[in-house]
């Protein structure tokens, strides 16, 4: 069920298919709406705005991003980080990467604080100072959904002529994230995503949350094993990294977890 919704969301948010054969980019009223997860808005098939791009756009203009903060805050206050688990295309991409059979390891704990540094320094202070969206310049999503296909199918060669150090740097970051996501669960979401960093603050206070029936819980650890964010749910139900995908609720052998108000 979750996978179907993730796939549907990916196609809804990147649903401007004429861009693939006609070129150009979607320009319409839907772009006013920020899809509440990471999805590059400057890419041809994108139908909605990207909150990461929106935040940086207004910070770069030295304005408070009221609308984007409002969207993220409303979603966060209602369901915490749930959007990351159900409707994020880049989250789906990482979930699929982790299914590749390979050596697996747990992400070192200090990495989970790295996303807050990225939010404050790269998407905040640097953008405020230089006026350019530096998180977007480093974000692997833009390369995945636009940079690669556009360069690959570039008939005129105009785009290929513009490739330089920035493109290769992005490829380097992208390869690093792919390798990390194959070996560690949702590496980008847990360590670098600024939208996840914003939502994570709301997990403890959100309207809906996970609850554990301690009498039923046997601390078998199956919740952590199935969790795409590697959260030890039996110890902490509303951890900053919990994306409320509810895998733990459905797969708990003693049915000790519940999600609700």
């Amino acid at each position, binding site marked *: 069920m979750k996978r179907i919704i993730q796939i549907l969301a990916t196609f809804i948010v990147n649903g401007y298919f004429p861009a693939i054969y006609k070129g150009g980019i979607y320009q319409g009223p839907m772009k006013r709406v920020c899809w509440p997860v990471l999805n*590059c808005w*400057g890419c041809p098939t994108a139908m909605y*705005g990207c909150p990461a791009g*929106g935040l940086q756009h207004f910070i770069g203009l030295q304005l408070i991003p*009221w609308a984007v903060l409002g969207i993220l805050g409303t979603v966060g*206050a209602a369901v915490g980080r749930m959007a990351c688990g159900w409707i994020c295309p880049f989250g789906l991409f990482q979930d699929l990467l982790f299914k590749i059979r390979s050596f697996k390891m747990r992400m070192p704990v200090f990495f989970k604080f790295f996303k807050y540094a990225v939010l404050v320094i790269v998407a905040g202070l640097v953008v405020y100072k230089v006026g350019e969206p530096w998180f*977007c*310049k480093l974000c692997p999503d*833009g390369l995945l959904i636009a940079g690669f296909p556009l360069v690959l199918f570039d008939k005129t060669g105009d785009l290929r002529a513009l490739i330089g150090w920035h493109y290769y740097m992005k490829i380097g970051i992208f390869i690093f994230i792919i390798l990390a996501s194959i070996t560690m669960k949702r590496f980008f979401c847990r360590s670098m995503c600024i939208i996840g960093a914003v939502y994570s603050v*709301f997990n403890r206070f959100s309207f809906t949350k996970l609850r554990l029936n301690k009498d039923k819980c046997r601390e078998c650890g199956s919740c952590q094993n199935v969790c795409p964010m590697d959260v030890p749910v039996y110890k902490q139900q509303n951890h900053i990294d919990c994306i409320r995908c509810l895998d733990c609720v459905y797969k708990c052998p003693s049915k000790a977890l519940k999600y609700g108000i």
Partner: protein
Amino acid sequence: MKRIIFAIILAIIFVASIIYGGKLDQFTEIESTGSVMCLSCMGIE
């Protein structure tokens, strides 16, 4: 109960933030910025 009331108050504040952003034409600004192919987002410039 406290948490639910807090979450509702937070949501009201953020909905007000969306409305205020709308009054400042921030949604139009988002539309116009997002309607341009962002080459630097793709790593091409």
